[in-house]
């Protein structure tokens, strides 16, 4: 095992070049949130143009497309993927499994520094000649590397290099998480006793290890097309009046590779969110998670199916039309295990003892936003229903609800929930509630009406909609409204940053287990846990992580590591109350 017992002493080895999974988790989280804030500002800039076209002269068409591209890539890859796996995964896997650290601590540290490097390279693309790429986050060639698109000078090269470095980081982290789950569980922690958070992150990591290579090779191939003049993705074309020397490449090949990565990527983000939401709901409703076994199987089945649905992103791409039958069927089949998860969350609430803490608010908000995002997926997965909606605002509304807003709500819920363990202090409850209400209601106001702009036929990725006769003026008024709400929701996120910052220093002491939670991470000898996590003796596990709703006795739950013969002692139920 990686943990050798010797504790680092200097500031540098403890907080910077740290090999402690908890420090690395915090490094990952802060970096991801920082670049995520950049992504959010970019979205607000786009909204300014859409809501008030031409009013902000510095947002010209080039910049608009650059903001759009960077926003998408930052949010999906550099914020959500990094935060769920590198942040939550790093912190929670060893603590929830009773391990002392990840099995490869040095590799773990390297993973973070590669990730940071990838983020810095990405940010550097704002400063290269020509600016960042404006090819859309899908980076479809030939457009992404030919003139007529912003950032074809340097931006696209920098973007691809950054992605390659990110994938290296994700692979180092991923091998570590999988190995730790399989090898480093403490005595008694069988796979079917693992909390669903670990199941979600574990499965998502396996998906990442299989999916990212497809992005990696397509990135390398596109770099070759751009820099060496190969023709993997570019056929003979006439670009801006010039016959280019490319010949025989296939733009569709890139799309297949991209979505072979891109669809599992959706679940790389969704599965950890599923796990976190399951745990939050169970703890704060004081009730066993409904149908644990089915929840685990649903995660695994969704993970497997996520590799055979990719071409539902390509129904109008020009691929062989017969593929439509296959991919529509697999896509709608994946809705069944997904729906079961939603049912089981709601059934966990049923006859629970629901504490509407801030994490619980976010968890219930997640059920609602994920519900609508999942249901609109049934429109877009069903090939003939998708065709008229493809590349319209309906798609934008759908994916923001299902893989933007929902995972972000899970992130917030998770951060509030584990904040007392990470810092030993409680967040400010009032600020947390305000943050929830504005974010939850605001995102509905932003994205719900967008579906209807898509039904009308407004294409996405348009810088402006001037002089289109079929678009009524009211659509512009709606866009202005959406922009105003988006700015408010954006500004509200500063409350969240402020809350965590201030509470980490000044918050009330929370105690070791303010939620009276049963899973292992709440039963460390110290809070925050120290290097090595468990002191002298690693915990022994006697049951799964959901022993809530006990009827007799002082306490309504049993910690995972409490021996069965030992008398149950009640802990003070501090929760959010001071």
């Amino acid at each position, binding site marked *: 095992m990686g943990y050798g017992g010797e504790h680092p002493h200097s500031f540098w080895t403890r907080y910077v070049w740290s090999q402690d999974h908890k420090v690395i988790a915090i490094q990952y989280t802060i970096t991801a949130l920082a670049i995520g804030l950049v992504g959010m500002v970019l979205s607000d800039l786009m909204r300014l143009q859409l809501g008030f076209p031409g009013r902000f002269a510095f947002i010209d068409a080039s910049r608009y497309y650059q903001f759009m591209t960077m926003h998408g890539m930052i949010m999906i890859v550099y914020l959500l993927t990094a935060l769920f796996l590198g942040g939550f995964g790093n912190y929670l896997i060893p603590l929830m499994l009773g391990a002392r650290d990840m099995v490869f601590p040095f590799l773990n540290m390297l993973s973070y520094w590669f990730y940071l490097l990838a983020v810095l390279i990405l940010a550097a693309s704002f400063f290269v000649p020509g600016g960042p790429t404006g090819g859309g986050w899908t980076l479809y060639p030939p457009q992404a590397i030919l003139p007529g698109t912003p950032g074809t000078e340097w931006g696209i090269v920098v973007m691809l290099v950054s992605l390659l470095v990110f994938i290296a980081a994700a692979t180092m982290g991923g091998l570590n998480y999988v190995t730790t789950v399989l090898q480093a569980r403490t005595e008694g922690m069988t796979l079917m006793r693992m909390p669903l958070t670990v199941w979600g992150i574990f499965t998502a990591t396996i998906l990442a290890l299989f999916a990212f290579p497809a992005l990696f090779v397509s990135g390398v191939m596109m770099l070759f097309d751009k820099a060496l003049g190969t023709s993997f993705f570019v056929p003979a074309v006439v670009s801006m009046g010039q016959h280019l020397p490319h010949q025989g490449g296939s733009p569709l090949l890139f799309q297949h590779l991209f979505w072979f990565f891109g669809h599992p990527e959706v679940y790389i983000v969704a599965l950890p969110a599923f796990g976190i939401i399951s745990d939050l709901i169970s703890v704060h409703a004081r009730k066993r998670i409904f149908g644990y076994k089915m929840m685990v199987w649903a995660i695994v089945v969704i993970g497997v199916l996520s590799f055979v649905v990719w071409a539902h992103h390509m129904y109008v791409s020009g691929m062989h039309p017969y593929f439509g039958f296959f991919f529509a069927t697999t896509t709608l089949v994946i809705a069944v295990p997904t729906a079961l998860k939603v049912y089981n969350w709601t059934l966990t609430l049923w006859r629970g003892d629901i504490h509407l803490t801030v994490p619980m608010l976010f968890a219930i908000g997640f059920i609602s936003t994920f519900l609508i995002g999942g249901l609109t997926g049934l429109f877009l997965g069903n090939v003939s229903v998708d065709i008229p909606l493809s590349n319209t605002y309906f798609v934008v509304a759908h994916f923001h609800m299902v893989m933007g807003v929902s995972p972000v709500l899970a992130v917030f819920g998770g951060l509030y929930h584990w904040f007392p363990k990470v810092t030993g202090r409680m967040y400010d409850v009032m600020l947390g509630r305000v943050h929830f209400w504005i974010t939850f209601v605001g995102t509905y106001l932003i994205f719900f009406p967008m579906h209807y702009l898509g039904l*009308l036929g407004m294409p996405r990725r348009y810088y402006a909609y001037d002089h289109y006769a079929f678009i009524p003026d009211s659509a512009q008024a709606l866009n202005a409204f959406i922009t105003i709400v988006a700015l408010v929701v954006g500004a509200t996120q500063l409350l969240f940053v402020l809350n965590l910052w201030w509470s980490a220093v000044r918050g009330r002491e929370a105690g070791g287990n303010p939620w009276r939670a049963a899973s292992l991470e709440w039963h460390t000898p110290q809070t925050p846990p120290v290097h090595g996590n468990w002191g002298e003796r690693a915990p022994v596990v006697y049951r799964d992580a959901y022993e809530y*709703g006990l009827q007799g006795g002082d306490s309504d739950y049993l910690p995972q590591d409490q021996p069965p013969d030992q008398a149950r002692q009640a802990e003070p139920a501090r929760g959010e109350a001071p």
Partner: protein
Amino acid sequence: MALALILILIVVGALEFHYLSPWWLTPIASNWQQMDDALLLTFAITGVAFVVINLFVAYAVVTFKHQDGVRAAPTHTSARLEWWLVGATTVGIVALLAPGLAVYAKLIDPPPDAMVFEVLGQQWQWHYRLPGKDGKLGGTNVRFISNTNPYGIDPADPGGQDDVLVEGQEVHIPVGRPVRVLLRAQDVLHDFYVPEFRTRMNMVPGMVTSFWFTPSRLGRFEVMCAQLCGIGHFNMRSHVVVDDEPAYRTWLAAQPTFAGLAATAGDEAGKQGRLLAQARGCAACHSVDGSAGVGPSWKGLFGKNETMNNGATVHVDEAYLRESIITPSARIVRGYQPIMPAQQLTPAEVTQLVDYIKTIK
């Protein structure tokens, strides 16, 4: 309590919005009513799930909110209930999928007697071609594309000589006849999107893609690009006009053919420049009839005084036109954006363009 109230408000608000929304499908203009039916069916089935689950959560949050002394129920699983729910979901999924796939089978099966027209996409304009008297489109290859042959028609293919090459950004088709649209792109991906026709397809360089429909009512419909194709993507416009048969015939007869265009070389002032402007896509942003576009209209441009975005006034003369063609971002007219890409043009071609612009009064 507040949470339950908001969830109920979301459900009520969503339903109200759905029924009152002024933003809805454009009136259909093709035979694909079945696609709309599948969409509405999807709304109905998913709408029920949306309402029921949100209200269930709202009810649970109110009813089972923490009360001192009350503990959660110990029940935590019911395989029977789970299988019932899985079964009900499966039925719903089949009810969505079956009609969806049935329509799709028709969508990808064009009638053999369908008429054909071709769209060629270019950053950021459209070219239309119809078969001539022989009923066949001539072969094409990107390597034949030039200023005088913007479609890349194989000059050696006799089948291409009588092909009808549509002038301007508007194609006509007759109402009530099935039409198969063949799609090509010469540079990057595009997507030929007319919302009223419902069906559509990407245009992929190196491939010919297609879709089919039967126009069901007369009208002039806007064509948009719906696959990101660069800075001018949002402004890649043209029109499809659905005519009755006589009007279509009249329009068709007035269009030039490939052979005809080649025969009438160089007899009008600025002709070379005009062909160049069409081939290079200039016409997509610069109108010749004074209508607003992404770039300034060329109508009456020569000799005019224009205000630049830095406030200076410029007299549009030959030198300014040359500068703006060779270095587009040097001086930008107020109200426009510096988005024009620099084109590789020979000095002779620049002169042809300038000569052409001078003729547009």
